[in-house]
C-alpha cells in the first residue's frame, strides 16, 4: 500500500507540473522536450488562463460530491463504516475545491468585467453547492447523536436531490436575466480543451491522494476511539456522570 501511495504521489506530481505549465504558457520546455500549452485568449489575454483552474476545480468538486452521494446511500443500506468515512472525506475535499472555484471566479471577473461577483451559472451553482456541503460538515460537527453517520447520510441524499433543482432554477433565471458568462459559451479551441482536460485529470489525482490520506487518518482516529472506549473504564473507578 505504501509503495502504491508513493507511486501515485509521483505520478500526480508530474501530472500537476505538466498541467500547470500547459495552463500558464503557450509553449514550455520540460527538460529536453517541448510541449504545446494553452494559447493566449484573444479578448481577455493572460487573465483568461485562470479558466484552467476554475473549471476543472468545479468538475472535481462535482465528481467528489457524486461519490459522496454514492457512499451515503451505501451507508444507509449497509451501515458500513468505510462508506461513512468515504462520505466524510469526499465532502471535505469537495468543499475545498468548491472554495477554489469561488475564489478564482472573482479573481477572474474583476480584471475582465470590473466586478467582483457575477451571478454566472457556474459560479452561482457552485456557491449553492458549497453552502449545502458546508451545512453537511456543520451537521457532522454539531451532532450529539451516536448515529451521526445516519443523519449526515440523510442530509447528503437530500442535498444531492437538490442539485438538479439548483442547476435548473439558475439556468432559467439566467435566461430571463442574462449576465456575462464566464468561460464563454459556444465552441472551444481544441488546444484549450486539451489543457482543460489535462488539468482536470491532474486535479482529480490530487483530490484522490488527499482523500486517501484523510481516509487513513479518520480510520485510525476511529480505531483509537474504539480502543479507548473499551479500555478507559478498566483502569479507573466508574465514571461519576450518569449513564447515557
Amino acid at each position, binding site marked *: 500500500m505504501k509503495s502504491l501511495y508513493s507511486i501515485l504521489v509521483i505520478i500526480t506530481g508530474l501530472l500537476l507540473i505538466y498541467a500547470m505549465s500547459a495552463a500558464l504558457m503557450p509553449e514550455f520546455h520540460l527538460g529536453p522536450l517541448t510541449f504545446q500549452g494553452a494559447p493566449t485568449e484573444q479578448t481577455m489575454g493572460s487573465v483568461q488562463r485562470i479558466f484552467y483552474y476554475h473549471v476543472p476545480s468545479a468538475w472535481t468538486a462535482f465528481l467528489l460530491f457524486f461519490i459522496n452521494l454514492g457512499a451515503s446511500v451505501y451507508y444507509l443500506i449497509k451501515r458500513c463504516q468505510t462508506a461513512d468515512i468515504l462520505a466524510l472525506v469526499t465532502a471535505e475535499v469537495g468543499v475545498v475545491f468548491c472554495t477554489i472555484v469561488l475564489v478564482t471566479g472573482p479573481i477572474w471577473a474583476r480584471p475582465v468585467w470590473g466586478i467582483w461577483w457575477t451571478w454566472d451559472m457556474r459560479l452561482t451553482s457552485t456557491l449553492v453547492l458549497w453552502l449545502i456541503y458546508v451545512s453537511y460538515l456543520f451537521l457532522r460537527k454539531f451532532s450529539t447523536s451516536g448515529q451521526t453517520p445516519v443523519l449526515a447520510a440523510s442530509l447528503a441524499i437530500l442535498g444531492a436531490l437538490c442539485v438538479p433543482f439548483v442547476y435548473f432554477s439558475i439556468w432559467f433565471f439566467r435566461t430571463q436575466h442574462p449576465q456575462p458568462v464566464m468561460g464563454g459559451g459556444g465552441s472551444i479551441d481544441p488546444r484549450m480543451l486539451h489543457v482543460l482536460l489535462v488539468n482536470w485529470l491532474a486535479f482529480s489525482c490530487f483530490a484522490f491522494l488527499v482523500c486517501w490520506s484523510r481516509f487513513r487518518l479518520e480510520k485510525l482516529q476511529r480505531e483509537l476511539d474504539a480502543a479507548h472506549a473499551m479500555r*478507559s473504564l478498566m483502569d479507573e473507578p*466508574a465514571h461519576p456522570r450518569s*449513564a447515557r
Partner: protein
Amino acid sequence: MTDIAPVITVSNLIKQFGRFAALRGVTAEFAPSRFYAILGDNGAGKTTLLRTLAGLNHPSSGQVTILGSNKFRNICREVGYMAHPALLYDEMSGIENLGYFARLYGIADGKRGADVIRAVGLDPELTRPVGQYSQGMRQRMSLARALLNDPRILLLDEPFSNVDLHSARDMVRLLAGLRDQGKTIFAVTHQASLLEGAADEFIWMEAGKIVARTAEFTEMPKESAR
C-alpha cells in the same frame, strides 16, 4: 430453571459513545414472569442497557433478542417503557394523554384509558393538566401510559425517583401484582431498598458490565476500591 424459554436474551452487548463505552459486553438471559431490579452507580450502564432493550438505542455491536425476535419493531406491542421524564404532554389531562397514546397503539376500546388510570390509583375524571401533578402522580400516570397496551414486558427507568414514599410503595405493590399476572418487569433504580421483598432478582452493574445477580438485596457484592 433453564427449561423455560427466556423472554429476553442479550449477548455481548457493546455500546460506545465516542471514547466512552457505556456497555462493554453484557451477556445475560432473563426469564419470563419475574421482577428484575437493575442497580449500580451512575455511569454503570443501567439506563443504556434499558434503552437498548426498549429499542431506543442501537448497540455498537452484540445482539438483543426479545420474545424470539431481533427486531424491536416486531414485538413493540408487547413492551411498555417508562422513564424519569413523564413521557406525557404537560398541557393535557391524564385521560386526554392516554386517549392519544391509545390511538398510537390502535386500541379501539374507549374505556381502556380510564381503566388503567384507576388501576394505578388515580382519578380518570381529573381535568388538571399533567404538568400540574405532583411527581408521584406523574410517575403513576406515566406507568398507566406504559400499561395501556397490556405489555408482556415492562421497562422502567428510575420510576420511583423523587416520588413520595407512599406512592412509591403503591407502585411497587402494583408491579409485584403485574409480575404475578405473568408480566416480566425490569426496573432501574437507585432505591433498591424499596424493592426488597418484591423483586425476584437484583442485577448489579458496574462499568458497563453485569457483575452480579443476587436473589436478595445486600450491599454491593464486590468491594471494589473507590
